[in-house]
């Protein structure tokens, strides 16, 4: 016997407003359940059907998913941090101090972001090693592997550009050392350093440049590559588990 609440929900579902947003109707048949995934902007990157075996933790330890989850968390905390941060030279350090001392839950926000970043780098490396171990780079997955490596680079750059933003001694000298290493490249080294720093010294231009990279360019690239990465995983047959075949080639499950 449907409860009054369920009855009310049913009525809601018959309204025109509802129908204009959620078009598929209740997910009670295979068709509507499929539409629920591939007809959804956010979910259609994921496959409609997955093999049950691939949902086990031991399959890939959810490394890729966790990396993505951490990325989302970093984006959320990052945007919240952006409310309190000025990418200018005396303000940057002061704003970081203000986050520590004045902003409610500022310590939490900053630590989440920083620790999340460290954890994400760790997970991304682990994910890469695991994919390699399981042979997930072999055809037809070789393009996805390249995308993955690009994602690794984006992650590392995000980490490096973000490291400068507190503008403390640690940040300043890390960037000094890093950009000096860049300048050791033959022929183009000094020019590349100039582009990276927006000048010859690690100063306000460098801070602004790194901020834009960290907040706009690299996250956009990350989203782009993540999209392609997921798409390729789906199109190449789903997560990790190879279908088990009989001697005559038919799928077992």
């Amino acid at each position, binding site marked *: 016997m449907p409860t009054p609440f369920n009855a009310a929900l049913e009525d809601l579902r018959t309204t025109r407003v509802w129908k204009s947003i959620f078009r598929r109707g209740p997910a009670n048949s295979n068709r509507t*359940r499929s539409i629920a995934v591939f007809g959804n902007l956010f979910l259609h990157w994921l496959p409609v059907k997955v093999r*049950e075996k691939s949902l086990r933790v031991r399959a890939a330890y959810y490394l890729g998913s966790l990396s993505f989850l951490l990325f989302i968390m970093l984006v959320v905390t990052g945007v919240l941090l952006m409310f309190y941060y000025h990418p200018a030279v005396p303000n940057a350090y002061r704003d970081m*101090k203000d986050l520590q*001392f004045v902003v409610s*839950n500022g310590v939490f926000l900053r630590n989440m972001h920083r620790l999340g970043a460290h954890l994400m780098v760790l997970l991304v490396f682990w994910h890469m090693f695991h994919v390699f171990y399981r042979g997930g780079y072999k055809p037809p997955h070789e393009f996805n592997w390249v995308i993955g490596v690009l994602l690794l680079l984006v992650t590392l750059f995000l980490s490096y550009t973000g490291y400068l933003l507190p503008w403390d001694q640690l940040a300043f000298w890390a960037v000094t050392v890093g950009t000096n290493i860049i300048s050791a490249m033959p022929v183009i080294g000094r020019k590349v350093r100039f582009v990276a720093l927006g000048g010859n010294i690690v100063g306000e231009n460098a801070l602004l440049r790194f901020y834009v990279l960290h907040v706009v360019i690299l996250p956009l690239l990350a989203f782009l590559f993540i999209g392609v990465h997921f798409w390729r995983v789906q199109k190449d047959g789903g997560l990790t588990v190879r279908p088990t075949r009989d001697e005559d080639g038919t799928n077992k499950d």
Partner: protein
Amino acid sequence: MPAEDMGKLSDKLRLTFAVSTVVCVLVLAISPVKDFRAEWKHYKRAYVKFAQGRSDTKRLLGDYTMEIDQIWLPTMNVTDRCMTCHQGIAQPSLADSSVPQPFRAHPSIPHNIREWGCTICHRGQGPATEVAEAHKTTLAWEQPLLPARFLQASCGSCHQADIKEAPQLARGRELLSYLNCQGCHRLNTVDRSRLGPDLSSVGYKVSREWIYKWLKEPRTVLDKDGNTTVNGYENGDESRMPKFRLKEEEIRALSGFLSVQKAKPIEVYKINPAVVSAWSKNPELLSQGELRFRQMMCTTCHPLAVTRAGETKLIGGNIGPELTKIGSKVNKAWLIAWLRDPKSYLPNTSMPQYRWSDEDLYKVSEYVTSKLSDSDLFSNVPQLGAPTEEEIQTGKRLFTDKGCSSCHVLNGAPTQKDFGPDLTALGRKNASELEFSKSKIERNLVSYIQAKLQDPVSVNPAARMPQYSWNQEDLDAVTTALLSQTGPPPTSALQHLVIPKKETAFQVVGAFAQVFERYKCYACHRFNGYGGTLAPDLSYEGSRAQKKWIAEFLKNPQTIRPALILRMPQFNMSDKDAQVAAEYLSLVLQKPDVDPESVDVRQFTPAMAAKGKQLYEVKYECQSCHTIGATGGYVGPNLNNAGNWLTPAWIEAWLRNPQALLPDTLEPRRNFTEEEIRALTAYLLTLRTGIKTQSVKSAGNLHSLAQGAGR
């Protein structure tokens, strides 16, 4: 999986989700809970409780909110959140010491807290809202609170001239100048003092043995075993030359090198043989010599160790070197040449050029070289002959390597700059920028400075800085002065707040210039801000003293202030010199609104004088501080001869408002009526004595006064 089972969750999964959700929420809740229990909020709540227990609760909580309070002055780089916990800092009713910290009010100071914030004076991390972060050195902040003892260092960041509210800072700067730290280190706001003596001709002055002994232990009040008989430092007279850590060969080399420095030969003066023959056999020679030595008041500028009542003390001023064993130090020909004309040996000396009669010269030089000596002084110095060429070369190299040429001028040795590190920004250094080596002191700036001053080698085994010795008070003063060296101000607003020191110069020309330079008046007296502080400021002497009196005084200085030990020396000035000086002082050094001619002496009647006497003795009891004749107090000057000494205009102006004439005088300003002032002036003008030449008896009086003093 069959279609109907799709989307169903197993119980295990449900449980997993439930547990992880709860765990997530709990973990997420940590931050808001911690935020609620923030340290500053705790102090704010405590303040409310505290204020409710006081009688003026409403006023104390007038502008209270549960928010962070800050003083924000962006142009001055100030973001101070100290008031968040120190809620009562600006509440006058909480000024008592029974109020618990952090609620106690700030003691009243010349600067308004809201205009300046806290960290400009107290340092520390202004933006912090946690106790440890705000006050102490933490992982990310290395500028802790300045200990209260050295707080005056912050005054020095802006006040480059000395202020009366910061005497410890003034003393520290004075010491830095006196000990010539600027010779090796760059410093701001510290006067560059006279350097060590010019050593170009030192070979004529002292023996190699003496140089050896001096380099080993730069104090002259030593006995043959090298023990000090008087602790010069305790009496405020430490030798300005510090102790260098020199090895035996180095001392030999340096002493050899210096003993051959004979750039300019001294003019040997031959004392009139008749005088010599008259006095040399006289048994009174040395005692007469001692008498003249005392009468010429050499100890006004030079310290001397004397033994009285079984106790050895240092008496005298500290402008010149100590004379206790000077006879063993210098050779006699040099001494005579020096006494006659100091400038010929040291062009920029502070020693005045006395006028000597041959008799006096003979007596004093004999006394000095016989009595002010110690025959055992060099008994522990090894036999040093003439130096070898190798020793001289080594000595020459050592002279620059050890930093001697940072203080001593020497022909042929290049003047050194920056022998030691630049200290202009020492006050702002973080502990991580300092070299502690293996020392066991606390890792902070203040401990570092104190350790370095007391023993440079402890914090840097390769230090070239010599060894100084300090008493605690002077150590703290110098630490304060060094902590005030904070380098250029970080913002332009702070730059505008810096109050630079006014450089004073006093240019004299003409006949007086010669007298001025010959007798070095500025070594002790101040003229319009320029000069020494040992003796009274003469900037207004023309308004104060009568010209005739000045001339007489210069020829025969008398006791004016009985409580003071140091006296003006008697230079044997010629009448002409005294006249020139008196005229200059009277005419030029006047206070604009005290014209010595403005008050006519003839208007004062004996009746007024009698009234004045009654006021002096009965109504105001001035004799509590001033002496007339044999009775009275020691605090103010002797008024025996006030009629001849002071001008009437000065007396009147002085009685009206002493602080207008001499800002730091001890004389209290009273509420005299004009009539009373005139009566007192009349009385004082009747006090006249003839000026007597200094007799043996008067010298004895000074002796006894000095004995009671014990400086």
